[in-house]
Each structure stands twice: as C-alpha cells, then as structure tokens.
C-alpha cells in the first residue's frame, strides 16, 4: 500500500534505501508509529489501550522498558487521563505523546480543546476506527473528523512509511506553531498490515528535530498562571491567535516536508499530493489508504485512455484551501470520496472541498461519494464505479452518493440469521 511515489516509481527506489536509512524493517503501522516516537526522543508517553491502537503502546512499552527510550510511560486509567497527562507533561517543556482510536478519541474530546487552547505541541497517533454503536473495530474516519474544530492539526497517512515520516514531521511542525498534531492511520489496513519501512538514522533525525525549546512553561523561577479565567475583552483575541497559528502551519507543513525530503529522500507534497492530474479532466479527491487503491484504478483507467487523476488530502487541518482551489481551476469535474459521514449533511471532506471552492472564480462540478464505512473494503472497482458515475453525469444529482450500498442484502442477512436461529431451536 502506498508503495508508489509521486512519479510512479517504487517506494524502495524513491526512498527506503536512502543514505539516511538505518535499516529497512517489515512492520505494522502501529509499530511504525512507536519507532517514530523513539526517534523523536519523546520524554513522556501516556496512553490507554484500545483496539486497534494497542500495537503502538505495546511496542512503546517494550522500547521504554528496554531502556531504548529515556521516557516516562504513564499507564493511565482512561484516554481522558492520557491526554491530561500529556498536557501536564508538555506544560513542563517535555515532549509528549499519546495514541488512541475511536471511542478513546471521543472520550478525550474535552481535553483536545484543552491541549490546543494551551498551545501545546503534543503529538497523537489515532488509528481510525468507526464509532459505535453498533460496535465496530474497523476503519472509517468519523472519529477523527468529529474532532476537526478542536484546534489540532490533522494528517492522514497512506502507508506505514508515511506514518513514520509524518510523526517525525509532526513534532517539528507542532513545536514551530505551538499547536498539537494528530496523525491518523486506517484501522487494520495500516495498523495491522506489515510493510517495509525505512527507519532513519537517529543522528539524521536529531539534526532534523532538535530537542524541544518551549516558549513558555511551568517554571518555579517565573511563576505564572495558565488557562485562568478570561473575560469577553480578551478571549476572542486568544482564539484569533490560535487560528493565526493554524494559518502559519500551512507554510510550516510545506517547508518541513521539503526539508524532510532533502534529508531523508521522502516527501509527501505538503498538504495535498496530486497524482496524474496533468491533462486530467476528472479528479478524485480522497485520503488515507483509499488513495493507494485509487492510484491503482487511476493507472488502469489512464492506460485505457480515460483522463482521470487523483488528489490526496494529506492535511485535513489546516484545510488545503489554496491547493483545492488551484485544482478546481484546472479540472472540470472533481469527486470527493469520503470514508465518513456527517449525518443530515454529507461527507465531511466533500463539505470542506465545496466550501473551499465556493468563493473561487472558476468552480468545477463537484460530486460527493461515500464508501468504506465501518471497514467495508474500498477496492479498485469501487473507485472505477465512482469515475464511471462522474463520466456519465454532467453534474451531481445528490449531495452524497453511497457507493456499494446493499440494503437488500442487509435484509437477506437478517433473514438468514433468523433462519439459522430457527434451525438452532429445532
């Protein structure tokens, strides 16, 4: 997954065997995050287990216990406390990390605001998992997208290598703009799937990411109060500054990705990576592992002569408004594939894309598609179905086209269940 670089060359050729590489290992996405945390010299880890994030904290427990990372690992009693610990640790100037998923992220919600409002460069890995009920442990993005207004930067990774590289980039970006960063990876598709990952040399990482130097902290020699009561005369200005930092993050993301590319031989296009958009007439916008699948479908359709392309939304916060507008100027039809849904509205990235385009002078036809909820596979066929829909429609007819829906089959499944229950009774 995600083994194709920007120019279609294999990831091995594009970067794994770069001089900055210490070794190439075949690891799961969760472990890729753990090794990145080690390389980032994180000082305080606080986490609570939840499937499918557990690999992150298990591997980190091994790393810390073995003395390979000089960190405090607080094994808390909830995700809420995990984030509170990270906030406390980060307030002392330490580099802090947590990892969670789905319900755990939802439980943290209050403290996600607290971390961003405190302007703390905490980095979190969230393994995207569908929200219950009904219980699901499989991928979709409603968990993290529900947190979009908390003031956290959000990245979506396409490969285990990108997880590693984005965690390292995230600490640098977070500490530049004093905002927390969430790196999202798809449940099981990345979290439990082994891929070759280049582990960079510690020395090169140290050069890229120096120790944290906190602009403010809890300091007995300079006693200050943080987060105290504030009146209407100043609250707005603090929120304005938070957004200004988010705006600054756009340049930080691009610059850090470029610098990372120079040092490590891998970069990801900043906020958005375009794939085969030259001379494309129809482009699909999507994120995370659906991008890898879409690359395959785009290659196939291109080989058949169809003018299709792809744009990967890597950073969702800040939202890549400029990148989307530039795409919209060149492309007549854009479809957005969301692995999430805002009930009563539409797919969330579709909404954001639409909002970004509304004030543009040139606007494409914009289609919204929803697929892959609760871990339903997104296959090259799914992507081809989406392109086919756009080719056969002059414009969108619905705010959201649900792809691969099988309502009648759900009923059949229920009947089958009833039959088998009857059978058991007999």
């Amino acid at each position, binding site marked *: 997954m995600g083994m194709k670089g920007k120019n279609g060359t294999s990831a091995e050729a594009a970067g794994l065997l770069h001089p900055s590489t210490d070794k190439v290992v075949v690891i799961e996405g969760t472990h890729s995050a753990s090794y990145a945390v080690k390389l980032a010299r994180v000082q305080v880890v606080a986490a609570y287990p939840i499937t499918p994030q557990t690999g992150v904290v298990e591997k980190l427990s091994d790393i810390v216990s073995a003395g390979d990372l000089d960190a405090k690992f607080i094994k808390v009693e909830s995700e809420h406390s995990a984030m509170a610990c990270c906030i406390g640790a980060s307030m002392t100037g330490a580099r802090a990390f947590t990892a969670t998923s789905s319900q755990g992220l939802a439980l943290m919600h209050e403290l996600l605001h607290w971390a961003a409002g405190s302007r703390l460069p905490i980095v979190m890995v969230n393994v995207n998992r569908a929200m219950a009920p009904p219980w699901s442990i499989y991928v979709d993005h409603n968990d993290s997208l529900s947190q979009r207004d908390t003031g956290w930067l959000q990245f979506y990774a396409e490969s285990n290598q990108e997880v590693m590289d984005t965690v390292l980039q995230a600490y640098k970006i977070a500490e530049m703009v004093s905002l927390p960063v969430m790196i999202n990876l798809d449940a099981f598709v990345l979290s439990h799937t082994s891929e070759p990952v280049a582990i960079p040399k510690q020395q090169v990482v140290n050069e890229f990411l120096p120790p944290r130097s906190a602009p403010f902290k809890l300091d007995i020699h*300079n006693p200050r109060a943080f987060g105290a009561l504030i009146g209407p005369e100043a609250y707005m200005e603090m929120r304005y500054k938070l957004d200004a930092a988010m705006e600054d993050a756009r340049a930080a993301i691009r610059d850090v990705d470029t610098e990372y590319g120079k040092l490590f031989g891998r970069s990801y296009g900043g906020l958005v990576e375009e794939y085969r958009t030259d001379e494309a007439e129809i482009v699909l916008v999507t994120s995370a592992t659906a991008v890898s699948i879409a690359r395959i479908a785009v290659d196939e359709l291109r080989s058949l002569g169809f003018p299709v392309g792809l744009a990967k939304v890597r950073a969702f916060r800040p939202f890549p408004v400029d990148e989307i507008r530039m795409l919209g100027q060149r492309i007549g039809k854009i479809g957005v594939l969301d692995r999430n849904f805002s009930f009563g509205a539409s797919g969330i990235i579709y909404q954001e894309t639409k909002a970004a385009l509304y004030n543009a002078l040139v606007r494409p036809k914009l289609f919204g598609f929803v697929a892959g909820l609760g871990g339903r596979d997104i296959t090259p066929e799914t992507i081809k179905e989406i392109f086919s829909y756009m080719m056969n429609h002059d414009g969108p007819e619905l705010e959201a086209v649900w792809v691969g829906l099988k309502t009648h089959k759900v009923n059949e499944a229920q009947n089958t269940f009833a039959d088998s229950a009857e059978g058991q009774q007999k």
Partner: protein
Amino acid sequence: MGQIKFDLPGEEILSPGHFACPGCGATLTMRYVLKALGRKTIVVIPACCWSVIDGPVPYSAAGVPVFHTAFESAASTASGIKAGLEIQGDHETTVVAFAGDGGTFDIGLQALSGAAERNEDFIYVCYDNEAYMNTGIQRSSATPFWAWTTTTPTESPKAEKKKNIVEILAAHRIPYLATASVAYPDDMIAKIQRAKEIKGTRFIHVFSPCPPGWKFEPEDSIKISRMAVESRIFPLFEVFNGRDYKLTREPAGTPVRDYLKSQGRFRHLKESDIQQIQSNVDEEWERLKGKLTFQVESRGKSHLHGVVDPERNPPMRRAIRK
C-alpha cells in the same frame, strides 16, 4: 471570641487581592499549603472555586506556577507534570493538585483513583466545602446528610450520607493521607510538611467552611470548623499506608446540635433529624476508633518510631483559645 495567636512557619506566598469570598476556608487552605511547601511548588487547579479565586488573566494570587485544568483532570494533569519534571531532571519541585469536593469525590474520582493506584508522586489537597459552591451551592456526594443545597431544597434535603473519601483513598494503600481543618492551622501545616517528605500519592482532606454556601457569617468560619472537629463530625487524623490510623486531636465530643444550629443550611432540621445526625456521627466515630493504631494519649509509644515524629505534631491548645 478572643483573637487566635500563633506563629505560623513559612513564607507568606499567597498574595492578598485574590477573588475569594470573606471567610473562605479554601483560601486559608491554599495559604497554609503554600506556607508549608514553599516556592518550589507547582499547583494544578481543576474547575472549582479556586479557578476564580486565583484571579482572572493576567492576575494570579498563588505566587507559584499554576495550571488550570479540566474539572475531572486534577490528578491526571498532576501526574503528567510530575513526569515531565522528573524526566528533565527536576526531582525537587512538589506538585500539588488542589481541588474542591466536586472535582475529588465526584467527577475527578476516576483520575484520582488511577493516580493513587499508580502511586503518582504528588500531594492532592481536597478543600471540601461540601457542595458545588462555585456554580451556586448544588449538592455533591460530599454534602452531608439532610443538608439544604439549591438541588436539595428543604422540602427534600439530601437524603444520603456524605461519601467517605478518606476510606476510598485508604483502600488504595497510598503512603500518606490526613484530614485537616482551617481551625487548626499548625496541625494542617505539620501534616502538609510531613506529606512533603514522603514520596508517592499523598492526600489531604481539608474541612473548608463556605459562608455563602452554608449560610453563616464569615467571621464564624473558624468557630464552625472547630465545632466540626470537637463534635467528631470531622475528626483530625492521619493514615499511613492505608493501614495505620493516628488521631492527631482527641475531640471533646460536644453535641452536633450546636454545629448544626450555627448554619442556615441546617435550619430546617427537626429535633428528630438532629438526633439522627448525632447517631450517624457517633457510629462513624466508633468505626474510626476501631481503626486507630495510635491514640493521642499514646504518642511517643508508637512502633512507627522514625517514621512518625510526634514532636512535630504537638497538641493544638493555642488554636482553641476562646
């Protein structure tokens, strides 16, 4: 009533000009805690009266670094601060979680239990004013039996007994916990200083009178606190390792009636209610007595010599002058 005269040790770190109500027990508690701990202290404050008392931006009365955190997060935030300091080589600074009864008995109990189970190295001070006072006197699980609050009106006063937070913490076998009262500041300061010398989770449960919440005149705060101790409603004691209980003041055993009559929140009580409360208090006192490893009278004969120094905790006669 005569003036209370005693010499309190320690620097005066808390500034005047804070936002507390007159007669506030929580403010006296912070003053004594900071006196006992000194300036190498970081305080974590969840949502509680002290979110206001310390002062709005850009003011802070505490005189030491303060971090305001979410309501249920005092113990977890303190855990993170301590870890952050330790990993950066600061092994000296004392971290204090300073929370009200709502943030301790109710919404913050999970985080507190988690931290206590992990034996996180901080001092947790709960100033217990027996209701949600900052939001306007709503009942908490620390509100006493049959008390009035705005959510337990006199037609249906609080029908449940106060949650026993000390027993909950004792069950975690933390190295040190103590009860303290603003009416006995030298006892409180001695306990905070003792706590400072111990590693691990330390818990101080402070009886913290609230004039507007309990409906009494601010000048009676100390008198009422003293009555709570002397009537055995709030005995002063220490618990070591969740096992060894030590009374630090033998209460006179005065009737609870005088205490109850001193506050508007109990004005609706009938004679039978007062009898019921007296009986509840007597029962709790007997339970506590059964747990005591040491009596006040047996000071100096303890088998914990070297751990507990009785000389640091003398009788409180100076503070009870009338």
